[in-house]
């Protein structure tokens, strides 16, 4: 599989300032061979627009506040409106376990809490995107 064909948009949906986790995971993804677009802080609408414009395969959202239950649905709505409902959506950060089911139902494919080894995230993306590229 050619990883460089997989495009990933990495963002914080909203204005929250804890970006260290996002940059660390983004860097690990790039080192693993994926094409990474580092979006930094974006509104959910901007996330969806950028994902569509760049035609990405994966969107990774980092959240260290509880506002992911507001921003993630907004991102998903935006992605669907732009015909990008099929992207692989990842969520990382301090995510409450009792939200996992609801998030997965919404369409979040993978949830990664602090301390997850980078390899685990990379392998997850590889596995889930293997069908996306020839």
């Amino acid at each position, binding site marked *: 599989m050619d990883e460089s064909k997989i495009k990933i948009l*990495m963002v914080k*949906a*909203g*204005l*929250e*300032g804890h*970006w*260290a*986790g996002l*940059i*660390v995971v*983004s*860097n*690990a993804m*790039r080192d693993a061979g994926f094409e*990474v677009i*580092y979006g*930094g*802080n974006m*509104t*959910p609408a901007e996330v969806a627009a950028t994902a569509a414009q760049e035609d990405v395969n994966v969107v990774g959202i980092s959240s*260290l*506040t*509880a*506002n992911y239950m*507001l*921003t993630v649905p*907004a991102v998903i709505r935006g992605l669907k409106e732009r015909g990008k409902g099929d992207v692989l959506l990842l969520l990382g950060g*301090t995510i*409450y*376990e*009792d939200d996992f089911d609801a998030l997965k139902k919404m369409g979040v494919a993978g949830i990664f*809490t*602090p*301390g997850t*080894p*980078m*390899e685990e995230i990379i392998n997850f993306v590889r596995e889930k995107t293997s069908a996306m590229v020839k």
Partner: protein
Amino acid sequence: MQTEQHFSASGIPIKDIYTPEDTKDLDYDKDLGIAGEPPFTRGPYTTMYRGQVWTIRRLSGFNTPEESNKLYRQEYELGQTGFSVAPDITTSVGVDADDPMVEYEIGHSGLPLNSIEDVETAFEGLPIDKVSTYLAERGPITAMYFAVAEKRGIDLKQLRGTTAGCMLSWACLNIPLQPPPRGYLRYGVDFIEWCSEVAPRWNPINHDSYNPRDLGLNAFEELGLLFAAAIDFIEEEKRRGRVPLDRFVRRFSFNTAAHNDFFEEIAKIRAARRIWYKIVTDRYGIQDPNCAKFRVHVQSSGSTHTAQEPYNNLIRIAYQTLAAVLGGAQSIHANGYDEAVCLPTDQSMLLSIRTEQIAALETGVTNTIDPLGGSYYVESLTNELEERTWEYIKMIEDMGGMAQAMQDGWYHRLLREKPIERQQKVDSGEIPIVGVNTFRFEKEPYKVPIFKPDPATSREIQAEKLRKFREKRDKAKHAEAMKRLVEACNSDENVYPYVFEAVKVGATFGEVSKAQVDVYGEWPYPIGL
């Protein structure tokens, strides 16, 4: 060398054992002295914890001013001895709660403080005449706080507390609508000048290296940034010449992290005191010894806490707290053990306060001042950290100072690289983390209680309050005050007398921030991958 080479967390080679040989160049009177006397290495005050134990102060706030007020009352009842207010991200950005930009942010990671009414609500019933308050903001909210204090009949000349105002930590947030570093420096210096006149016991700036440290900088890099930033502020005032330097510097305060390397963190605080003394006295020739006292708030390091086996964090926090105590901190925040998992529960808040109380009352470490003073190892580390810090300060000054180094992107490049470097060391096992990359269970062995805030309605509540607040204010007075504020921002004048007038007649935080930022234009942060 008998065994394999060891290094401190900041890379200082550590010997098998330290002997008098390692401290033979130490001149007791010149390099150490007793506490409360130059160079203050052993402590800024003569009696230290024997006279008064450090202030117990948790940075907190969530949802709304009303709910945060309940939290502050609860903390006070549990024996906290200072308040510490964390405004939410909208307040850091500088917009009001009804701005579309912050649709999803209100009440997350802090409380919204948009108007003088919000500040009044947050502090209702709290004894702010007796207890000092830390405000994690850069000036306008403090102006509101001063107005609330005045309204309550408190003499501003006696009011005690601290405004964050530090560009190092602010720049770490990477948020929109911020002025460039020189704009930040200008308003910061304005605020210090203004406070030195209207509220001389207030600490108008808290030079703060906590955030960069938590992003992965080491102990001497942390101090280097801290002092390079403080020097920038002094240089700016020197250039202006509006306030005598001794008055300008007298209430400078500092804020560092307490990280994992126990002795290095203790040595760091001791070295910081000696360095600050030398900067104030030798470099600027300021004679007032009060200006040369490095007074510091220390917070346990959030980046060392893990989501795996969260109770392990209690142990980490207790050690870090003890390092702050043995280092001689004036104020300490022991984190909640569950902060990598959720906002602290009531139980975690209680444990955080108890951690400090147990250190203060049960361990006996407060019985004497600077108990590690004279230790061959600690003195040697203190010297080593001092030396490396001076080199780091020089490197930043060679770039034109901290604000210039920020403007040129150096600071943000550093902030981007450090967390990546740290993660690589964690991945490789070079930095061991118990329960994460060492002794990790396949499945988490236990769960901890969770606090789940529900700020879903905070935005509506705040927006409605703002609407009423704006309706109620005297529109002519408000317009006039805003006009004068904008004029001041566009001139060389100190803006804070105008900020003070404006917030008293109903200017919101968003309006004041906009007036300030408009002059310089938004500074796009240079953080990218």
